Every structure is written in C-alpha cells, then in structure tokens.
C-alpha cells in the first residue's frame, strides 16, 4: 500500500511545497496539503509538519501554531499511534505541543546557518530510519534556532530509551563539538518520542531527495516511513 502523506500548511510555512514535491513527484507516494484551519486529516497515514516560520515565529518558534485547529487533530492522531514527522519549524512545533520533550534556543553563534551537514544515524530501529543503510547521511540545514536543550533528567531518559535519532557528525560518524552547527545539547539534530511514532529533526530531508540536487540521502527517511505500510 502506498501511504498518503499529509503536509500541514501554516501561514508562514515555506518548505511545505518542497515536502509535497519530494514525497509525491520525486518518490511517487500520495500526498495532500492540509490547511491549518481545517479539522480533518483527510485520511492521511503520515502527517508532516513542514519547515518555515509559522505565524512569523512570534513569541517563540511554534508557539502560536500549536493552537491552530489542525494541531488538535494531529496531537490526537499521534496519541493514537499515528506517524507524525516534524521538520525544522515542524520540529519546533512538536516541542511546543509537548509531543516531543525539550525546547529550541537560538543558535549559539546567533547566526542563521544554511549548509549541508552530516548526520550520524543513532537509532536505526525506528519507522523513520529502518531503511537507512548508511552510518551517516548528508542533508542540508537552514535555521536560526536549532540549539536543542532539555534538562538532565529528560536527557538521560531520552538516552536510555534511544530517543536520540540523529546527531551532527563528521562524514565518517565522529560526533564532536567541531561538527555541531548550532550548539545543541549532545549534538542532537533529531529526536523521537518514547513510542517512536513522532520524530522531529532540524535538517531538511525533503531538500535531499531529487537527484537533480545531487544529494538524495533524505529520500531514505521517507522510504523508511513508506516501507512501514507495506
């Protein structure tokens, strides 16, 4: 079965079409946009919260998006085991809703960072990563607030439950401060919830799918998710 991906569109989303294009046109899965004011997930099997600056990122990133009508449905979908994938601003929204633990601070450098980076795949046992055959993947980041932070108790619990999915690393999987683009705790780039059905990551896999871009590692994440529905 081909899964249907629902891409939520908030005012200020700017990677919504990138996600739709990669999932539908490049990878050939079904996809549909879901407007933030709707209260219907239209039978989608996977929900993508895309990158961008929802509601202008006013107050805090994702702070206002969490009260949009569609999010109420997304939260109950996730609580019932539905697959929810937040990318960049979508990750920040998942943190604000509490579906994922922690918060995002401004990059340590105070600069917006836009470049290709390597991610070490820390947990290959999830719906999102089971199809990744490599130790590291190359994907772009583009954010000003990707400095992940949480308290020590939560961090230890996340480590224990293998909830850290991606960390910033060298091309051969060496994780150190040198490869950390934003100051995030433990080089964290992506995490999941305990149940492993909700994942958020700062890098943009949807911008590394189309071969024309000469980087396709991001496709492995979407293919992993789709494989789950076979």
């Amino acid at each position, binding site marked *: 079965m081909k899964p249907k991906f629902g891409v939520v569109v908030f005012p200020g989303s700017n990677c919504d079409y990138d996600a739709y294009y990669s999932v539908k046109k490049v990878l050939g899965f079904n996809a549909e946009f879901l407007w933030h004011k709707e209260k219907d997930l239209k039978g989608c099997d996977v929900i993508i919260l895309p990158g961008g600056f929802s509601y202008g990122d006013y*107050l*805090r990133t994702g*702070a*206002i998006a969490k*009260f949009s009508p569609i999010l109420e449905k997304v939260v109950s979908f996730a609580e019932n085991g539905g697959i929810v994938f937040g990318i960049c601003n979508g990750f920040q929204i998942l943190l*604000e809703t509490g579906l994922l633990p*922690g*918060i995002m*601070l*401004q*990059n*340590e450098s*105070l600069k917006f960072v836009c470049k290709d980076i390597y991610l070490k795949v820390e947990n290959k046992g999830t719906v999102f990563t089971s199809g990744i055959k490599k130790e590291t993947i190359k994907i772009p980041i583009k954010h000003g607030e990707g*400095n992940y*932070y*949480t*308290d020590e108790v939560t961090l230890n619990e996340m480590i224990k439950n293998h909830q850290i999915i991606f960390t910033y690393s060298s091309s051969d999987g060496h994780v150190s401060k040198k490869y950390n683009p934003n*100051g995030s705790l433990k080089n964290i780039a992506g995490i999941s919830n305990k149940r492993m059905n909700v994942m958020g990551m700062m890098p943009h896999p949807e911008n590394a799918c189309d071969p024309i871009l000469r980087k396709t590692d991001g496709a492995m994440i979407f293919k992993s998710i789709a494989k789950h529905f076979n």
Partner: protein
Amino acid sequence: MFKATVIVKRRPKILDPQGKAVEQGAKLLGFNNVNNTRIGKYIEFFVETDDLKAAEKEVKEYSEKLLSNPIMEDFEFTLVEVSSPKTEVKIARE
C-alpha cells in the same frame, strides 16, 4: 478594567545567546562593570473585567499557556485598574 503588564524572562540556568552577544557590545563600549545581561520580553494588554481575581486568573493562564514556555521561561505580571484603554493612551502621550 485592568491594564496588565507581563514580563517573560529566561530561567537563570538557560543560555541566553542574545544577552551574551549584547554584553560583548557592552564590554566593547567600556561598560566593564556590566555582567550577566539577560534579555526578556515585555507584554502589555487590557483585561476587560472589574473583578481583580478573574483578571489575575486570566492573565496567569494566558502567560502559562501562550506567552511563556515553562521549560525555559518564568513570568511575572502586574495589574493596574484603569477606566478605559483610551485614557491610558492619553496619559502615555503626555
């Protein structure tokens, strides 16, 4: 009616990159006694009720649910009784 002012501050242990950067500027200007600069948010609005307890409850909930994120921020607020928003604006202009 009440006028509410809410101040949202980052919790002391949470890194404040903006405060840190501003403090670098302070040192460049020679303000050598300045330290531990922290940047927060100041938010003001009116609450249309004459019941102080109800106003307090509403402002507290608004601050908890939307204006601040309890994982990284603390907030404090004050309420001042005013007759209408218009008179308040006038006073501010004078």
